[in-house]
């Protein structure tokens, strides 16, 4: 199994609120191969973000197994998961969540502070990813000096600066206009096609899903159907 292969088996996730059990994911079986670009769609409350969190090691399943590469996430402690995330996962959020008092370069550099690297090595990496996202001339700008699209590019740069195996994006174009959304999705495509990153995007936007090679539809915590390159397939069986 490659380091970016994602496998979920019989995954169940339940939350408890005031002792009331709230099931979010039910008997979920899923495989995402290395280098795939997959979109995850579904109505609100269908469990999309929860699935993303499970794959990203931010949360653990109530039952079942979550395997990413050789790592069995449900068996790892919080400390191990945090360390694993820093090496293997890049996150992109809807609202970018950049640190407002840091420059673009400093924001991108943040994940690198977790590794034993010299300042010059970190600077070199940051410069490289800024070029990839097309913001080399904005490195010393603070977030409030950037447009929404530019901020999201910085967030993408931050997500890829550690060269993670997988990139998890939660509504990356949710706050952007159509033109800027297209630019962001094109960039994600580039990361997938040129750099071989495995990408999972949670989205409500069909245009975003159209960029993905495969779209998974969740409903009420279950995988409802799957589409490949726009072709609709039959409802997914739980096998």
């Amino acid at each position, binding site marked *: 199994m490659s380091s970016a292969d994602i496998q979920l088996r019989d995954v169940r996730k339940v939350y408890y609120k005031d002792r009331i059990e709230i099931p979010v994911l039910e008997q979920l079986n899923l495989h995402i191969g290395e280098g795939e670009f997959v979109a995850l769609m579904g109505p609100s409350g269908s469990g999309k973000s929860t699935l993303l969190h499970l794959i990203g090691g931010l949360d653990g399943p109530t039952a079942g197994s979550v395997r990413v590469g050789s790592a069995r996430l449900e068996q790892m402690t919080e400390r191990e998961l*945090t360390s694993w995330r820093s090496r293997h996962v890049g996150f992109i*959020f809807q609202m970018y*969540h950049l640190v407002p008092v840091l420059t673009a370069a400093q924001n991108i550099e943040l994940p690198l502070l977790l590794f034993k690297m010299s300042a010059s090595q970190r600077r070199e990496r940051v410069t490289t990813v800024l070029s990839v996202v097309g913001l080399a001339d904005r490195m010393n700008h603070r977030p409030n000096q950037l447009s929404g699209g530019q901020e999201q590019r910085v967030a993408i740069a931050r997500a890829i600066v550690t060269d993670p195996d997988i990139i998890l994006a939660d509504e990356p174009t949710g706050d952007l206009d159509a033109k800027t959304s297209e630019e962001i999705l094109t960039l994600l495509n580039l990361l997938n096609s040129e750099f071989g990153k495995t990408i999972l995007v949670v989205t409500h936007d069909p245009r975003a899903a159209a960029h993905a090679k495969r779209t998974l539809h969740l409903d009420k915590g279950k995988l409802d159907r799957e589409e490949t390159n726009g072709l609709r397939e039959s409802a997914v069986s739980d096998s």
Partner: protein
Amino acid sequence: MLMQNLRRNPLRSALTAVAFALPMAVFVAAISFVVALDRMAKANEKALRLGVHHKTSFTNLLPQGMRRKIEALDPDRRRLTAVCGMRWFGGRVPNTPNDVHSMAADVDSFPAMYSEIKLSPEVTAAWERERRAALVGAELAEEYRWKLGDRMVLESIIPPYPRLEFIVIKIMTESRETRSFYFRRDYLEESLASARDGNPAGVHIFWVKCASAGALHSLQKDIDALFANTPDETKSEDENSFVANFTQALGDIPGLMQAMALVVVFIVAMVAGNTMMMSFRERIRELAVFKAIGFQSGRVFFIVLAESVMLALIGSLIGIAPTALLLTLTPARLRSMGPMDALEISPLAVVISLLIALLVGIGAGFWPAYQAMRLRTVDALRRIA
């Protein structure tokens, strides 16, 4: 990143820094005062001087003849080495409102009594030769532009308000004496004799130089016993206790200072704690993202705590530095404290203040840091979304 985070909300950071700065300025001055009192007390202990004054009040005169009786308690000079009668002159420079801490002293025993002033043989000879001789503190001399050999006049505020001329024979640079003025008591008594009109010759206090701390305690009992049940009953006390009479006239100053300092620290801690909690609440999403990208909980704890400590230290330095500079360049003179030393900034006070600031920073930042450490990333991210 820590410094940049303080610039996140510059106004709030500035106001919190000021909230630290002002109380810490007061705190460092208060602790300096307590340290100055302690330093003076230690110096007094070293000087081994016993003050003998009237039991009713140190403003009542004691007959000068009592000196011989005190000296007779130890003819072999094993316990006491000198006795010096001193009388308060209450001098004032004419046409000024400023009092001068001026004392008339027995000419023969003053040099031995105040050996720390270190009178050279020439100055001692001048003291003995010139009845108008005056020993003037360096600060006093600077204030009135008096130099060696200058003549000046002081007038007393005590009836019959004698007005005397003096000649400066020494400028005293010892730290405790920089605002003192000593002259010969026989010169004062001569002037009072001509205008005596019932004024007795006498002293306000006999200072007894003791050979040891043990001798001081035993002489204290013996002298008071000697004059018990006489019209001139005495109260003998060591120099620290005597000085304390002045400071305690205003209440328990050191105790008040320390209590005030603690209250100040407590208030600052509350303000800082509130600020840090507000800052934490604003940064929940950011801290959740830190954890999401791989920052361990312990590191997140440290980031939040370090910010609090930095704010506390910066604010404190803003308060301590100007206070230290001000008191170093213009040491405060506590005129109403009697023979109290000047209030100067104490390095110990600065260190204590910074340590207190560090502790306040840790105390104020601990709870938000702990909350940050325990923050469930998923819940916080869900809140963000």
